[in-house]
């Protein structure tokens, strides 16, 4: 705590997840296949911090996706912490909310992703659960990179100034 940032040359390497175009396409395929097979009302794949990767479905505005993904990530994190505190934590646990009209499923998909699906209650629970777990395993096996090279233009000319302008432009 007594060190100033300038005194410690150690680079902070936070967890970061890179999704390549081919991985994004694979995630989309897995999600859409799950939606069609189940059939599901909607599907959402996000990272563990609630950043949306894929969404498909009806009855949900795109505008609410960021909020939904943040809540889902928080839900999963809280459920896992509850399981840990009660000595019941296991890998690949699935959260099920069974309802009169809809059932919702939330599961971890490896260390990086969260899979959320909602289906009508006419869809047999066992069938939906099987498919969700299968899709979760497929997503988990993708091994998203955490050390991709490239800056996506962060260091390109004018990026910093354009970023500053964009932040200033947020205020109406």
């Amino acid at each position, binding site marked *: *705590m*007594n*060190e*100033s*940032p*300038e*005194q*410690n040359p*150690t*680079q*902070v*390497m*936070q*967890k*970061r*997840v*890179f*999704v*390549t*175009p081919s991985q*994004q*396409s694979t995630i989309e395929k897995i999600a859409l296949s799950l939606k069609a097979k189940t059939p599901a009302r909607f599907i959402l794949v996000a*990272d*563990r*911090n*609630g*950043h949306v*990767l894929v969404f498909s479905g009806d009855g949900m505005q795109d*505008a*609410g996706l*960021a*909020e939904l993904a*943040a*809540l889902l990530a*928080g839900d999963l*994190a*809280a459920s896992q*912490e509850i399981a840990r*505190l009660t000595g019941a934590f296991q890998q690949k646990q699935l959260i099920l909310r069974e309802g009169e009209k809809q059932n919702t499923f939330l599961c971890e998909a490896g260390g990086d992703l969260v899979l959320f699906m909602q289906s009508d209650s006419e869809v047999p629970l066992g069938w939906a659960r099987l498919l969700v777990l299968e899709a979760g395993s497929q997503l988990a096996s993708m091994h998203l990179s955490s050390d*991709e*090279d*490239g*800056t*996506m*233009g*962060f*260091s*390109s000319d*004018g*990026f*910093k100034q*354009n*970023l*500053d302008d*964009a*932040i200033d*432009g*947020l*205020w*109406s």
Partner: protein
Amino acid sequence: MLINWKLRELNLKVVYYGPAFSGKTTNLIQIHSKVDEQKRSELISLKTQEDRTLYFDFLQLELGKINGLTPKIHLYTVPGQANYESSRRLVLHGADGVVFVADLSEDSLAANIKAWKNMHNHLVSFGIVPARFPMVVQFNKRDLPKALPYDRVADQMQVNGRPKFPAAAIQGEGVQETLKAIIQAVMQNITRQIA
């Protein structure tokens, strides 16, 4: 941080951390009220019946395309109350940067120091070196009649070289400056890491 090459999206997580009643949620309320609704999500607040933060508040900002890249900034607050330690840790996990909101009320010095140390302990437990982690400190409630001088509070907290922003968040003062500084610090850190 999530970088999606296909969508050219950069998703970042910034957490507002600090003691109870320091004004973390107030910062997000101010940002939500001042930012054009096309550039932000709705403000989500998971509250107790007493209107205190139970788990987190959430707000997403979209900066639009910058050099072909779309940065999306996710802002979270942690709950400040003492008994929500587990929740604070969960929300802090995965953060790309932190705004520490300190309270300049004269009776809040000990709470500031405790929360500051507590946050450092969490960061260390995540394998992060706090001294190099993007972090800015906002000294809120400077408008109070008996507010402590912010440099005195900063010294007591051992804030050292962190960017410091005196603020009266309830009036919107210092909110924008703080947000701009943490986004810049996070982007600078990412550029260093990736380049």
